[in-house]
């Protein structure tokens, strides 16, 4: 019974998106190549989004080449190509409807986690409708307002992801400071004790020598 209710709820949730309100925000782990696909329903929709590389397994060098990112249209053209980034925003007007690919390529073998957010915005206009249908201007205005709000949400997702990266860096720095300092103290003490022991041994031998 509960399952049926959940199904109905899920269906209602699905059917609700009458004015296309396409958002999706996810984190993926990239080992080599990962592609995410999204369907753009009508030509002229504005596709905007951002991605941030959350897991930087950089410990000893900042020579990490970064992640390559590309957007491929359904026709096979490459709309956007970035090499060696650690996060970026993108926005373009879809030249045609169909399946768009958002592909990541990781040049190194260590898996990286990427937080991705894509938003497809649609503003109804006279173009795509049948002849006897009219677009109410208030609906157009509402759609524009919604798109403006979605732009703010997109930016917020980006800031959230960047904040997560900074938090990791900060916590790593804190751990390193404590770890390395305590290690330094211990090493210093051990080194000086060894020095003293060595000097003792040195002098006790030579004193023994001189007694002959």
């Amino acid at each position, binding site marked *: 019974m509960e399952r049926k209710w959940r199904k109905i709820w899920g269906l209602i949730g699905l059917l609700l998106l009458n004015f296309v309100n396409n958002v999706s925000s996810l984190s993926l782990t990239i080992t080599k190549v990962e592609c995410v696909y999204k369907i753009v329903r009508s030509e002229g929709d504005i596709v905007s989004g951002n991605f941030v590389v959350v897991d930087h397994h950089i410990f000893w060098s900042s020579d990490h080449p970064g992640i390559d990112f590309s957007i491929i249209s359904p026709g096979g053209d490459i709309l956007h190509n970035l090499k060696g980034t650690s996060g970026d925003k993108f926005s373009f007007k879809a030249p045609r409807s169909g399946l768009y690919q958002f592909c990541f390529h990781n040049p190194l073998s260590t898996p990286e986690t990427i937080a991705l957010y894509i938003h497809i915005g649609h503003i109804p206009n006279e173009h795509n409708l049948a002849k006897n249908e009219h677009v109410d201007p208030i*609906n157009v205005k509402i759609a524009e307002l919604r798109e403006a709000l979605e732009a703010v949400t997109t930016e917020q997702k980006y800031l959230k992801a960047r904040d997560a990266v900074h938090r990791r860096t900060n916590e790593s720095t804190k751990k390193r400071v404590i770890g390395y300092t305590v290690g330094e103290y211990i090493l210093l003490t051990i080194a000086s004790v060894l020095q003293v022991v060595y000097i003792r041994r040195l002098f006790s031998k030579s004193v023994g020598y001189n007694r002959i």
Partner: protein
Amino acid sequence: MSGNAELRRLVMFQGVLLVVLLLALSNAPVGDAIWLNVPPTGTKCVSEEIQSNVVVLSDYVVVSDDHGHVPTISAKVTSPYGNNLHHKENVTHGQFAFTTQEAGNYLACFWTDSHTRGAGEVSVNIEWKTGIAAKDWESVARKEKIEGVELELRKLEGAVEAIHENLLYLRDREAEMRTTSENTNARVAWFSIMSLGICIVVSGSQIWYLKRYFQKKKLI
């Protein structure tokens, strides 16, 4: 990628495109779906960092080109503390909905079953909605008897509230990080001074000990 697989993929995409266009014309919305390719071996996981008390609604469907043999997948959703929220094996579609109890990283993993292995990559259509996007506007409209423009404006109001909440969250996080940074800064200063102090103390005690030792051995 061999030419055959490429051709198959192209045909599959075209078929799906046709289906999508048909759906779009019939005004049955596809929703905010993302497509992923689940590899034949290994799992494909997606995750999101979600705060507590947030509604999560998700729906996944296996997309296949030939209707004769629809590959099946298994799905598993875990909470940040490791609790199993949803687990299904050998299905072609499924959905799950839950309210998050704790803040953290929620993980949804998909993998192909051993029966349908060898069919290559399986395309899964995943809809993932959290927070305001998962709100049930139909029931709100029915309960308060609003419709049309007023409903749309109400949705916008919900979106603005969500933005406000996010802003407050970001501000709190920034304050937390500022505290951590200042803490680390103070610690670095203290530890460096202490390290200098320890250095001086250790070398002083070395000199004192060796002087006493040599005096005992009557070398000085």
